Structures are given as C-alpha cells and as structure tokens.
C-alpha cells in the first residue's frame, strides 16, 4: 500500500476542481493541469425547494 501511494504522487496529476475556484487556482500556480467544473448546489441548497424538486423531478 505504501508503494502504491508513492507511485501515485510521482505520476503526472490531472485534477478536476469542483467548487471554490481558489483551490483550482492554487494548483494551477504550481504548474498542474486543472479543469474547473462549473458546479452549483441544486436550488442553492434551499431545503424547501429541494423538497419540492424531489417530488417533481
């Protein structure tokens, strides 16, 4: 297991960043390839609307 972890970190790392762009930017500045996913919480996280959507969608 130890060996697997080390191998992983030596390979070229491509990342997908979901959410705060700040995290993705930090990785970019270290020369990594980052794809920013445009993700928003469904219904902005509003519980009432989420409840309604669960019934309709």
């Amino acid at each position, binding site marked *: 297991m130890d060996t697997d972890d080390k191998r992983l970190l030596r390979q070229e790392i491509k990342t997908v960043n979901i959410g705060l762009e700040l995290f993705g930017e930090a990785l970019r500045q270290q020369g990594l390839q980052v794809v920013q996913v445009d993700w928003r919480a469904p*219904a*902005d996280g509003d519980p009432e609307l989420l409840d*309604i*959507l669960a*019934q*309709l*969608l």
Partner: protein
Amino acid sequence: MSDLKASIAAANQETVDRILAGQPVWVDVRPAIEVVPGMTRNMVLHSSPRIEWGRMCGPHRNGIIGAVLFEGLAQTRDEAIHLIENGDILIDTCHNHDSVGAGAGITSASMPVVVVENKTYGNRAYCDVFESGALQSLKWGWYDEKVGAHLHWLAEVFAPVLRAGIECMGGLDVKSIVAKAVQMGDECHNRSIAASSLFFKDLMPYLLRSQVKEADLLQAVDFLAKADHFFLHVTMAAAKAVLEPAKDIPYSTVVTAMARNGVDFGIQVSGLGNEWFTAPAGKVDGLYFRSEWGPGDAALDLGDSCITETVGLGGLIQATAPTVQQYVQGTLADAIRNTVEFREICVSTNRELQLPNLDFEGTPVGIDIRKVVQTGILPILDTGITSKEAGLIGAGQARAPKECFEKALRAFVARYAQA
C-alpha cells in the same frame, strides 16, 4: 418514477410538441380596434404584467399619456392624466388581449398591428407594427408632436401599403424567415437586421404589384429600407401565436410567457394557466448610446419582447449572434457557453432553427421551471435600456429573476402534489 413525475414529463413533451407544431403566418395588418379582441376606443394596452397606474414606471406612464393624446381623447397632458385617474381610460396588458408589445408596448385603438395566424391551431396573435428606429418614440414612452405625426403616418399611409403587400403575397411564413435569419447573425430580439432584410426582399415584388398610390409606395419603401428592427414585431406576434396553444396543459412546468413592465417581471406556466408569477424587474447590463447616459438614468427591464426568449430565441441563442455580445463586452466563447447551458433548462431543441456556430444543432425550446430552480441557470434576455422617464438610451442583457420561477414552483406543487 412517480405518477406525478411521469405526468409532468408527458405534459412537458406535449407542450413542446405544440409549440414546435405551430405554423405562424403573417396574414394581415389592421388598426387595433378592428382586430384585437376586447379593444375599445378608450383603451390603452401596455407590456405585462398588470400594474396600477400609481406604480407604473416613467416610460409606461408617459407612453399611456401619449396614446391618449394621439387618439385625440385629450388635448393636453393634464387632461389625459385626469381622464386616466378618473378611470375614463381603460388600461390593460397586451397579453390579456392576445397581443404583445415591444418596449412599453403602448397599443391603442388606431394603431396598426400585425396579425399572425398559427395555421396549425387557428389562433391569432397581434403586435404593434414597428414604429421607428428613433430613440424618442412612443414605444419607449416618448410622445411629442413629431412622434404623433409619425404615428398618424404609420396608421394612415404606411399600414395600408403594408397590408396590400402582405395580401398580395398571400401571407408570409414567419418561421422560414426566422430559420434563415438565425443563420445570418440574428438572435431575433436585439438583432433582426437579417430578418428585416430578407422580409424586404421577399415583399418588394408583391408590393410593386399591389394597388397602392405611388407616393405612398415610395414613402413606405423608404421607411422599410431603413428599418433594421422591423421584423422583431412580427417575430413577437409569431412567438405569441405559437405559445398560445401550449397553454393550460395540466401538469406542464413549461414557461408560456415572460414579460416585464419596468417594475415587475412576470412569468406564466402552462400547467398554471393565466396566473402571473412576479418579482421585481432587474437592471439591464449593457452599453449606453451616449456618454452622458449611465445606469443612473435607466429604467428597469421592460417589455413583452422576451416572448422571443420564451420560444428559444434572443438571449437563449446568443451563440448565433456574437455582434450582440458587444453590448456586454462578451466573447463568442461566452455566448456559446450561455447557449449550451440553456439546454440544461429546456425540454427539447427545435430542429427547424439550426445554429451554424453550434454545428447546426437546434435552438433550445421549452423552459422548464423545475430545471431553472434546480440548476440556478436563469434565462438571459437580450434587450434595450430605457430611460427612467422616456426614450431608449442603450442596449444589453438582463437575467429573469429566480423568484418568479420559485413562486411558480411552489404554486405548482400546491396544485398538483399530494399533501
């Protein structure tokens, strides 16, 4: 899937099928009093939703006063206001009379309207004839002697000539013009120059053969030759005509109208009938035509013209009209991304309207209120910027407010879901 979800899916599909099956044909041009259902001599219509006189924005108020003067119902502004406040002038929305109106949407008895018939279902819809490209026009709430004289010319000289041409043509298939125009850089709301040019070209051979006085013909041709936005008003009537048969489908969550009056923004949903779900209208983000104008001078978003976005034109297909992006300093990439995003909130695509910049994929159609609320993707409307008082001062874009869709969603679940 629950029964409710299945019913919604089926209803939405039927809604979109009805919209797509529509065959809007421009058949006539007449004074509003002759064709608009419920129109009376002392009535003035404006863009939706309904709003009391006291709450109206400047362009609507000034526009209605202008219409009263134009119709000769009053001789001065004070007289006009007096009549209005007394209730002697009936004020209603275009939408309540099978019509739509661009800008303040001011429509009164003598004003000519285009008549579009949806041949598939037989219903008709109306929109005021393009008034003028001037910044100071009644459409934007501006009325003075010059505007009045021009409105008289439109009603007495231009409209009869236009009518004769359309009659000679045997009607004009609106969809076929729109299908070409969206391949020529028009999104058919803020940009209709291709549609207007194609219409001009198609009309001319017939106009020449119709029985009109030469002097009138020359004036009409001169006007049309300069009218870049002429076709917007035809597109709007056609959009209204294809949406009408898609209303009142039980269980449908598809938007059948969007409109704003400079104070409120409203939407209608097929499964919820004629009810408007409103929220405060938003600011329009864009460019001002003169350097002395800025956001401080602007009214909020107004007009029935977002009936175009409702059928999947305008701001929903910015990818086809990068020229319109210039108003908000956007790029083609922005425009494409926006259009691709709107697929996520729409039920289907319209294969008859293909976008070259998206390798000929169809336009998105059938805005689903569930998806809007879930994704947070709000329809973009390409639109003009009106002055707080009267007159057009810029152009740009606005988003439909999310509160409208949330309100509609709550009403929907209240009506259709088990407790």
